[in-house]
């Protein structure tokens, strides 16, 4: 299990030393740095990274993160606004002038930091801990419905191939509600790194719908992790569209800590020529009477690789757990590869837990059926691919988010088949 210490991580460490730091943040960063120093970035010898090789990340060098003067501020083209409240990061820097959500000082986050991440077992989160700066800090008070908040990250390339490590911290009080639409876009051909970490805690009965649209530039590295603690009766609903980047890994670590908590983790991976997309979920049923649903769909074209690793851990107290996991991949090219690793670890005895995985090409019988009705071959293929993905996105409840997802999927497919 021991990862090899990777000398190249030292480049990241030097940068961490140089960051300005409030005292408390310095502690977190120092711990992150120590972890990075001790373990480096994991190699494929680490079980959790068996299918995803971070060597290209370790070998790349990412530019300085020093803020640029107001004079040089780029005006990016931002995704369509879906709601009123929005926080915008451009080239890794929080842009108050483009945001409608008042930025809160980093120090506010201290109270919210929940210590959900593990520096020893989660190297991506450890890298973020060593280097983190601004992020979204939201504390939704008890009983409040905060509506839709947008978190936008755009990399324009104005500051070159940067590496940035935002840490987003959210807490929802009892019965509080929030929909978070989180989009990452970036310039094509630029080998930057975006390494966001979300620390989320949901109090009793809180509901968070978290929709993520990852469409970084095709040369970028996107390494993200979500860490979510779910109290009794609360619901965390994550949908992640993993479409951009040369190498993308989305980790979701969720813990159902109180009775009758729910977790939905759904997503689609759209993987084109030269791309590697990895979704890794770790779901811990720690309390009785909780439910979890996971459905992931991956479409692969060209020479590409998709990975799904999904672990469900059901602890002894988690009686009457109702868990479901489904992972389906559609291979549209002979050179595409999909690796699936479902993993169930169950210690409770009264549990309903199922999982399934399918990998295959388009069904010739379905294609023929459409063509026999006069629909040309290419259009028939498109209908079936879109149908495959629609099954994943149609479960997203928020209309604005569903529309954003549907646009992203359509745009990807239009480009992929061109």
């Amino acid at each position: 299990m021991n990862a090899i210490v990777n000398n190249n991580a030292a480049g990241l460490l030097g940068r961490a030393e140089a960051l300005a730091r409030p005292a408390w943040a310095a502690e977190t960063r120092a711990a992150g740095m120590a972890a990075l120093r001790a373990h480096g970035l994991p190699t494929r010898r680490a079980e959790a990274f068996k299918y995803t090789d971070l060597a290209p990340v370790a070998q790349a060098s990412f530019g300085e993160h020093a803020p640029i003067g107001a004079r040089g501020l780029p005006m990016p083209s931002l995704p369509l606004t879906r709601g009123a409240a929005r926080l915008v990061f451009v080239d890794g820097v929080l842009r108050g002038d483009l945001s409608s959500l008042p930025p809160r000082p980093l120090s506010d986050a201290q109270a919210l930091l929940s210590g959900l991440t593990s520096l020893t077992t989660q190297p991506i989160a450890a890298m973020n801990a060593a280097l983190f700066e601004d992020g979204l800090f939201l504390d939704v008070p008890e009983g409040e419905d905060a509506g839709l908040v947008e978190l936008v990250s755009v990399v324009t390339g104005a500051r070159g191939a940067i590496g940035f490590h935002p840490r987003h911290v959210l807490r929802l009080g009892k019965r509080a509600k929030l929909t978070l639409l989180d989009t990452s876009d970036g310039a094509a051909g630029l080998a930057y790194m975006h390494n966001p970490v979300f620390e989320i805690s949901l109090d009793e009965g809180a509901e968070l719908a978290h929709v993520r649209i990852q469409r970084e530039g095709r040369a970028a590295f996107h390494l993200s992790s979500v860490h979510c603690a779910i109290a009794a009766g609360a619901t965390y609903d994550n949908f992640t569209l993993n479409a951009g980047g040369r190498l993308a890994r989305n980790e979701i670590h969720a813990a159902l800590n109180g009775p009758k908590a729910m977790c939905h983790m759904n997503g689609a991976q759209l993987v084109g020529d030269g791309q590697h997309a990895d979704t890794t979920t770790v779901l811990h049923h720690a309390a009785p009477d909780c439910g979890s649903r996971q459905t992931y769909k991956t479409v692969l074209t060209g020479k590409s690789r998709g990975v799904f690793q999904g672990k469900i851990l059901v602890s002894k107290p988690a009686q009457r757990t109702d868990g479901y996991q489904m992972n389906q991949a559609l291979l549209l090219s002979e050179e595409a590869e999909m690796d699936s690793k479902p993993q169930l670890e169950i210690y409770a005895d009264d549990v309903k837990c199922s999982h399934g995985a399918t990998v295959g090409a388009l069904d010739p019988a379905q294609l023929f059926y459409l063509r026999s009705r006069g629909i040309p071959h290419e259009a028939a293929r498109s209908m079936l691919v879109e149908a495959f993905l629609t099954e994943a996105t149609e479960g997203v409840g928020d209309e604005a988010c569903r529309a954003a997802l549907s646009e992203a999927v359509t745009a990807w497919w239009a480009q992929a088949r061109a």
Partner: protein
Amino acid sequence: MLRIEGLTAEIDGKPILKGIDLEVPSGELHAIMGPNGSGKSTLSYVLSGRDGYEITGGSVTFNGIDLLAMEPEERAAAGVFLAFQYPVELPGVGNANFLRTALNAQRRHRGESELDAMQFLKLARARMKELSMPEDMLKRGVNVGFSGGEKKRNEVLQMALLSPQLAILDETDSGLDIDALKIVAEGVNALRSPEFSALIITHYQRLLDYIVPDRVHVLMAGRIVKSGGPELALELEASGYASVAA
């Protein structure tokens, strides 16, 4: 309209059709009857262009055009329709979207204007009413969760909307109760005109009580061994296929 001459075809090197000769003039309905394994479904798939069948000889022309040289979608646009024995389920593809896409693809191919959503819905609702289909079938995934009878009715709905010149009905009667059978038959009879022909492939005579064919052909072991009028179907029902073979 349809002319088949000396057609031979095989699957994985195994000959299935061993020299079919058949002509279906405009305006006529012909039934093809035969026992299991005689090549009935293979004939319907070869005519509609499904992959996996090696044509080893003969020819098929449709209005004088070489049908076998066309892609499945071209055959459909030219006016050939296959009602599937086992209609395929398409999860995630809405029935209305599917029907409209198919109809407009064919209209576009023929240089006709496409129907917008409203025009299409009006047309579809009228046809569905004729076939006693509940309107919510438009909203559901294509054939997903449909009963056997609903699937067959959905085939006939597609046929009604696409109004082909030649319909091939591959055991459309299988799995239907008598009421559904009548509805399906009415759907086919409604299309009858001097410009419409059909090839009705069936195992049993039952469907032919409701769709009376002009001609009946008996297919056995890849060949048409006997042809006759509608009375031939009744003979077969009474004495079985073995008597024809003898």
